């Protein structure tokens, strides 16, 4: 056993040391595999980034209440009375002032011009005063928050970065109304940073919504109070609502986009990997045939066919891992943190950062290794089976 390993090690070292003599075909395998891994990591980093932003937008102790049977805020509708009932239900935390930490909200979709020139939509959300208590991680990073009763907007960081005309101090017109931008906020990198906020009581008349809302966001007494709240509201005949934890809600929201990207990304990666396998096969076959004499001589000397085959496989694996690392590095340094945006189910733009996660890199390396092993298998068998006499005759 040990002898076998030593033979393998010696032969692998020999193979690898002679790699620089075959720069062309070795480079082909490395680059081919690097391309596969880079594209794979790149495309899937979109899904990872989107999921991170959207799914990470939910807090564990916050619940979102929507009208029964509805899956998104946009299509939900709640009356004023219903929101009051929800706010006062058991399970909802109360602030130091004794008031429930609940914010009944409404949002509309507005058209804005992107800095790149094209038009896109964003969410203009009306909040109640308690919203900031419910959303614990909101930080005003420029200017101030909106004053109740006024046409003032507090703009999310990501929205301000993506669209033109959202600087503090400027004003913007939606429909008939002028709005003043008074501040920019950050919210832990969550999806809310793509929104524009204002007082819900100003938004409602501006968009002729009377006293209707779409959702109520509440802070739970504890993460376990969700069940209590759900039971209480289910039992109350005055309201027909669905209560979800914010995290579940956002996970659901992200799902279609994430699923779609993955649906496209994985098959794409598999196809590319197939191409890479052919490239790797080509490289390894030419490597074996270029060294046919060498291999035959080694066999004549006494090295067994198994170590020779394993050494060829190892050579292929080394090239593949090099390619995988290169591709991963390309994806990481090129795309990680790159800002993209797409539309969500409410037809508004969500800004997210591409996330080349360690998990993706790991998957990429594994894929590269698999490609390398498959690509090295048949050439390895050939290396082992070359009839010594025939090969030596090639001298």
């Amino acid at each position, binding site marked *: 056993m040990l002898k076998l390993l030593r033979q393998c090690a010696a032969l692998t070292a020999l193979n690898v040391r002679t790699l620089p003599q075959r720069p062309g075909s070795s480079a082909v395998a490395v680059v081919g595999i690097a391309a596969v891994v880079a594209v794979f990591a790149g495309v899937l980093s979109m899904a990872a980034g989107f999921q991170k932003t959207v799914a990470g937008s939910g807090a564990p102790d916050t619940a979102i209440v929507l009208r029964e049977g509805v899956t998104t805020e946009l299509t939900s509708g709640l009356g004023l009375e219903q929101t009051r009932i929800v706010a006062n239900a058991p399970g909802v935390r109360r602030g130091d002032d004794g008031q429930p930490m609940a914010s009944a909200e409404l949002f509309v979709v*507005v058209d804005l011009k992107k800095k790149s020139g094209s038009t896109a939509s964003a969410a203009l959300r009306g909040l109640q005063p308690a919203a900031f208590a419910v959303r614990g991680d909101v930080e005003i990073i420029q200017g101030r928050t909106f004053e109740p009763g006024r046409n003032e907007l507090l703009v999310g960081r990501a929205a301000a970065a993506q669209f033109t005309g959202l600087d503090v101090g400027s004003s913007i017109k939606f429909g008939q109304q002028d709005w003043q931008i008074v501040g920019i906020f950050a919210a832990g990198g969550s999806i809310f940073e793509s929104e524009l906020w204002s007082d819900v009581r100003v938004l409602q008349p501006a968009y002729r919504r009377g006293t209707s809302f779409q959702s109520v966001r509440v802070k739970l007494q504890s993460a376990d109070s969700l069940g209590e709240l759900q039971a209480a509201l289910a039992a109350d005949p005055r309201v027909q609502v669905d209560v979800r934890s914010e995290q579940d809600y956002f996970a659901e929201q992200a799902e279609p986009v994430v699923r779609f990207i993955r649906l496209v990304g994985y098959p794409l990666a598999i196809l590319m990997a197939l191409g890479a396998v052919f490239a790797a096969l*080509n490289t390894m076959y030419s490597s074996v045939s270029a060294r046919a004499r060498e291999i035959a001589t080694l066999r004549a000397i006494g090295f067994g066919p198994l170590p020779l085959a394993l050494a060829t496989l190892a050579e292929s694996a080394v090239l593949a891992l090099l390619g995988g690392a290169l591709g991963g590095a390309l994806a990481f340094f090129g795309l990680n943190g790159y800002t993209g945006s*797409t539309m969500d189910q409410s037809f508004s733009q969500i800004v997210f950062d591409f996330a080349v996660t360690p998990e993706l890199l790991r998957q990429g390396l594994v894929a590269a290794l698999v490609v390398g092993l498959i690509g090295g298998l048949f050439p390895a068998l050939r290396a082992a089976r070359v009839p010594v006499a025939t090969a030596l005759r090639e001298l």
Partner: protein
Amino acid sequence: MKYLGLIWCNMWRKRIRTTLTILSVLVAFLLFGLLTGFKNAFQVGDSLETAERLITVHKVSLINMLPVSYTERIKRIPGIAEATHATWFGGYYQEPRNQFGQFPVDPPSYLAMYPELKVPEQQLARFMANQTGALVGRAIADQFNISVGDRLPLFSTIWPKQDGDRNWEFQVEGILDDNSPNPITNFLLFHYEYFDEARGMGRGTVGWFIEKGDGSRSNTDLAADIDLEFANSPAETKTTNEAAFAEEYAKQFGDIGLIVTAILGAVFFTILLVSGNSMSQSVRERIPELAVLKTLGFSSGSVLAMVLAEGVLIALIGGLLGLGLSVAALGQASKALAALLPLGMGLSPGALILAVTYMILLGLVSGALPAVQAMRLTIIEALGRR
């Protein structure tokens, strides 16, 4: 042509290598076809009809509704020949993931606006006589196995009936076909009158308007006039031509075009490396033979041409096979996703020509460098290279 035999035999000098190269090229063009088809699904294209029609939506957002009374005001604008409206019903069939377009419309004016939509006379007559009737597009009918006479329940995620129930029921009275070059039939039409009476909110409003000019004025002017008519009203409008509208919408998904181009760039670069390397090896092995051909009287130019032709032949074989596979796959996928992607995923003639051009370029470029290097050697040097 008589050189084809020589080129063919040379190509197969190392069968495995050539096969693997062809397979690599095949995969590259399979990807090209699939990705280009995918990208095309998001482009409405520029058929004459779509450039002729205008779409008017609420200026603030296409989600907001517009008063149906605007229809008459639009028709009175000079230069407008026809105007009609439609609304997004937002329903699904049986399961939430079976969403597709359903539009309550005014059938006579809507069907006149879209003359490419065809429905058999008998079916149309029955539809007109049945307020809860529906005309189902061919693609939807095929995907969900729906036929004339079927009961069609739809759950609207947006519109409740007056009793709060969101379950609506229709009877399928006819099947719609589209005989334009890019047929779109993944939708359903029903009566606005019924819809407006039965719905529990938003009465008297519609989602958007569609207009057509009589040819006396440009579309740009007409669009400007329409928007001017409703400026400073509670519901301002934004009018663009249909193709531009669809493109703007598709762009919101993200720059699909850019992503696809980037990926294809990476793929082709790699394939070029692979086939270039393959060709390099092949030519280098053959330098003495190429010299022999020159001793026989083949000019440098013709030897070079044969080497390049070999590269092009390999690229064409692999590329055409890959492209063919992608076309077949896209056809299947389009059928399965008809509800989601109206245009299906197909390859335009332009894309096919582009693909073949790439194949030829690939062959030429991968063969060029090694061929030129080989040609630089004099015959004697080349012969001596044993």
